[in-house]
């Protein structure tokens, strides 16, 4: 069973929920797809077993064959190419590795090389296997790293996918093969707005889903109201508590405390029934 954990904004508690669900299951695979800020490893402290480089295509030019037609420059929607004084300039950090420039060059002046944009770390944390994607700073897109993270996933057992924040392409890539999506939300108007964005996304992808309200404060019912109006199941409410905040800020798994372990375990059982 693959569960994706997503939210409309950063800092809502995706990683908090993800690592504790993985801990409650005490088995399976945790995948950190938040490749710009992979924080799951702070909590799970995996023993590193293998590191793989993630490489993407980058064009290289043979100026002897280049006619200066600028077809490639005009084609590149990311503006990664410029042609100046009989020389083609290539800006690797703007290149999205689509390969279109190489395909369109009628003179065969462009060829494909490979360059690394990040890594995937494979590790083990107790019985939990971990994968962490790390995108190099300044890169245009983390999607190739996410694709690499999500290849060869075992069909058996629990897989928790800790998504990037928001509802962009990187999130779509992370949830597309999931069996269930957990939407994490904060009980504020801003939180409701962000929840509505990811809610639309999982509806679009037709994924079974439920909401976890994190940092819940008594009397603040805006998220509950939104969920009731849209008939979205609420899986769990986690109170805004000093103890949770302290444990979390020290990189501890709150699930190690019995009272929290049981809530995360209940959520897993609820989801298992639905999928």
């Amino acid at each position: 069973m693959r569960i994706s954990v997503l939210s409309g904004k950063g800092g809502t508690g995706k990683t908090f929920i993800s690592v504790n669900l993985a801990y409650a299951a005490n088995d399976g695979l945790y995948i950190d797809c938040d490749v710009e800020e992979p924080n799951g490893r702070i909590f799970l402290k995996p023993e590193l077993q293998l590191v793989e480089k993630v490489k993407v295509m980058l064009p290289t030019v043979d100026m002897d064959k280049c006619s200066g037609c600028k077809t490639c420059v005009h084609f590149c929607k990311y503006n990664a190419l410029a042609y100046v004084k009989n020389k083609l300039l290539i800006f690797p950090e703007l290149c999205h590795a689509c390969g279109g420039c190489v395909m369109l060059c009628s003179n065969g002046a462009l060829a494909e090389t490979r360059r690394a944009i990040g890594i995937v770390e494979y590790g083990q944390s107790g019985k939990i296997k971990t994968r962490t994607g790390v995108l190099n700073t300044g890169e245009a897109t983390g999607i190739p790293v996410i694709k690499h993270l999500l290849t060869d996933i075992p069909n058996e057992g629990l897989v928790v996918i800790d998504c990037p924040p928001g509802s962009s392409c990187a999130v779509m890539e992370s949830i597309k093969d999931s069996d269930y999506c957990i939407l994490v939300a904060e009980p504020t108007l801003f939180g409701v707005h962000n929840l509505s964005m990811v809610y639309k996304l999982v509806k679009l992808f037709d994924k079974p889903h439920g909401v976890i309200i994190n940092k819940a404060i008594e009397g603040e019912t805006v998220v509950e109201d939104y969920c009731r109006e849209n008939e979205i199941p609420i899986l769990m409410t986690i109170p805004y508590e000093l103890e949770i905040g302290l444990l979390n800020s020290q990189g501890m798994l709150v699930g190690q405390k019995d009272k929290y372990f049981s809530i995360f375990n209940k959520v897993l059982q609820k989801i298992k029934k639905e999928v």
Partner: protein
Amino acid sequence: MKIAIPSEGTTLESIVNQSFGRTHYFIVVDSDTLQFKVIDNQAASAQGGAGIKAAQAVVDSGAEIVITFHCGQNAADVLKAAGIKIMKAVTGSVFEVVQKYKNGELMELMEIHPGYHNHGGV
């Protein structure tokens, strides 16, 4: 001498635009005859790499000098590869800035910023 200046409008009286890559227009003006042409900056709405695309348009216009308030690293790389000199703009109209350049009142642009989107896209 052909000078390219980012501009908010399409005449010599237009105000110099604060941005290079995302300016609305470039005025490419001959400093001797004051004849000019207007480039509609296609890069203004680009998702990323606006500086590169705008600089390519400026290079293609045949300009030898750019007068601008700001310029990012990528745009500067393109302009420098073309041998274009980058001067620091002062507040005013395109016409006034050209006059100031002719009077030797402008300095070369020294601070090239690393780009507003250090990822360059998305």
